């Protein structure tokens, strides 16, 4: 196996034993990037020079006895995380030349651990989309099938990890934006509990539902990444106080006696038969490992999509108001007054961003506020209560991550409602703020990966990771290579 295809924990062992250097790992990663990036298009910005300088520093840290598992590991970061001195575009023309003067909290923590920042990955503009097709810069292709989308909005991060262009990545997840692309690209993705990871320095989309999390090759790597970025931060008022457990220590493989809920509402209409089969297969495997699988009900799940889009749009319309061309970013030329300057500047936003700003503004208007926004917030309470009831019985809840495997380009962009459906199983966890993990659970006939979603109680990432790890260790999935591997190797 090549260095650029290894997990963080495999690299950790090699680095500790002094068998490879961070520099050599980074060379392997950039060799892969040079070979496939023209096809995959995962990165908006590559930090080649800075990355090699960081790798050199990491090698010095390791020589001096640094024990962080992330030291010397090449990591990709979604381009909505502020990175000091490295342009941060959110895949929007409005931020084409924006260079943040500071690092997001999660980025600062990775750097402190000695991680190496490879580059900034592509996304749907401001994280608004499910296929990365809403990027205003470039198309990112799914390494498993270049005619298909990588998912979104963290499509660049997922593609980079799947293609071997980084060991792991950071993503953000507002309605499924870590988990859906991770499932589409055959990797692991974790959306932690709301408040566990500081959002400081991440460009806000919908702040009551935005989450930061790892995208990795396996569950152990997700635990290692989470360990580095979790914890209270006074700079994020929604950040949670409390001790951060040892996540790697929770990966015991022992899931005997755990109760696994399988909600019938998330196994019904619109679910692809091969995905359904894979999820039932996973449920059977968990049962064979000593867990008890029970059918449960989340009665308000059918209203999650509608609830989600009202709240998201409302919050987006407010958060994206800061992009007005005054203090940073693009400003339209030749406006005669300030209001027309705002309007002309914001005409440069992409269609999805505009649609959501317009809808959000509409939902928040006097006369509509109660019908739409307040109503959605109340249904959110009911959705959250459904989970609370279910978790009185269950330790975790499983479901498909997505209704289908990766779809083709242009397939869903014409009708927004169809595109929104790809978040149908993931967005409930954002509404409720609970942790949710996706792990690969098979391939369909076309050879595309399928994801299993595992949701847990608030701040119980340990059980979620433990179940995911146990599944992964026993599933015995054949390790298949994405198409780009085949092309470059022969």
């Amino acid at each position, binding site marked *: 196996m090549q260095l650029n295809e290894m997990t963080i924990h495999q690299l950790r062992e090699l680095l500790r034993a002094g068998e490879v250097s961070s520099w050599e790992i980074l060379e392997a990663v950039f060799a892969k990037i040079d070979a496939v990036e023209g096809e995959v298009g995962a990165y908006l910005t590559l930090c080649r020079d800075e990355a090699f300088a960081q790798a050199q520093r990491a090698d010095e840290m390791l020589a001096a006895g640094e024990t962080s598992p992330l030291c010397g590991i090449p990591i990709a970061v979604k381009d909505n995380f502020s990175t000091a001195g490295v342009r941060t575009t959110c895949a929007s023309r409005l931020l084409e030349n924006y260079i943040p003067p500071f690092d997001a909290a999660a980025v600062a923590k990775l750097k402190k651990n000695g991680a190496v920042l490879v580059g900034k990955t592509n996304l749907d503009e401001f994280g608004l989309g499910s296929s990365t097709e809403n990027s205003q810069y470039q198309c990112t292709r799914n390494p498993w099938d270049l005619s298909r989308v990588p998912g979104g909005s963290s499509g660049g991060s997922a593609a980079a990890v799947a293609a071997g262009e980084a060991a792991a990545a950071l993503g953000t997840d507002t309605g499924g934006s870590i988990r859906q692309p991770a499932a589409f690209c055959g990797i692991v993705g974790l959306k932690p509990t709301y408040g566990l990871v500081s959002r400081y320095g991440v460009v806000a989309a919908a702040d009551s539902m935005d989450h930061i999390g790892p995208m990795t090759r396996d569950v152990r790597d997700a635990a290692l990444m989470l360990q580095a970025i979790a914890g209270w931060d006074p700079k994020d008022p*929604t950040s949670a106080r409390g001790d951060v457990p040892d996540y790697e220590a929770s990966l015991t493989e022992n899931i005997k006696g755990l109760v696994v809920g399988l909600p019938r509402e998330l196994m019904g209409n619109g679910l692809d038969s091969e995905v359904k089969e894979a999820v039932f297969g996973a449920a059977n495997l968990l049962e064979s490992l000593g867990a008890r699988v029970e059918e449960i009900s989340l009665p308000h799940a059918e*209203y999650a999509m509608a609830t989600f889009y009202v709240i998201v749009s409302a919050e987006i319309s407010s958060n994206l108001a800061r992009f007005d061309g005054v*203090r940073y*970013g693009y400003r339209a030329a030749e406006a005669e007054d300030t209001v027309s300057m705002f309007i002309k500047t*914001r005409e440069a*936003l992409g269609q999805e961003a505009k649609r959501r700003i*317009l809808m959000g503004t509409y939902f928040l208007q006097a006369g509509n506020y109660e019908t739409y926004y307040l109503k959605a917030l*109340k*249904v959110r309470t009911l959705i959250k209560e459904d989970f609370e009831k279910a978790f009185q019985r269950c330790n975790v809840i499983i479901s498909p991550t997505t209704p289908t495997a990766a779809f083709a380009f242009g397939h869903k962009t014409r009708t927004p409602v169809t595109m929104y459906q790809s978040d149908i199983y993931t967005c409930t966890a954002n509404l409720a*703020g609970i942790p949710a993990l996706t792990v690969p659970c098979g391939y369909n006939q076309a050879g595309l990966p399928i994801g299993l979603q595992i949701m847990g109680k608030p701040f119980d990432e340990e059980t979620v990771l433990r179940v995911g790890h146990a599944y992964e260790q026993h599933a015995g999935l054949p390790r298949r290579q994405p198409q780009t591997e085949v092309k470059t190797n022969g």
Partner: protein
Amino acid sequence: MTLQELEAVAVTARVGLTEEEKETFPEQISQIIAHIRTLDGVDTHDTAPTFYPIKQAGFLREDEVEPSLPKEQALANGPDVVDGYFRVPRIIEEE
């Protein structure tokens, strides 16, 4: 949503629309709103709203003097910066 309603919302939101968007958005947004109206059927009579999924106790930080972003850095990304200020088009008309 009619084109008229759309244009009014766009002014409130300070978002300029292209001709294509003026053509496609009313129908698309109407479809989304129709889907959202399925929420009307949910009984929320005695239900309180949830603004944030996980409630955190608010806190006040200590009021300590700390270094802040230097002025040059804070202004570095400004599209039009003059004498240490962000310049915008005229807001108040001259008498």
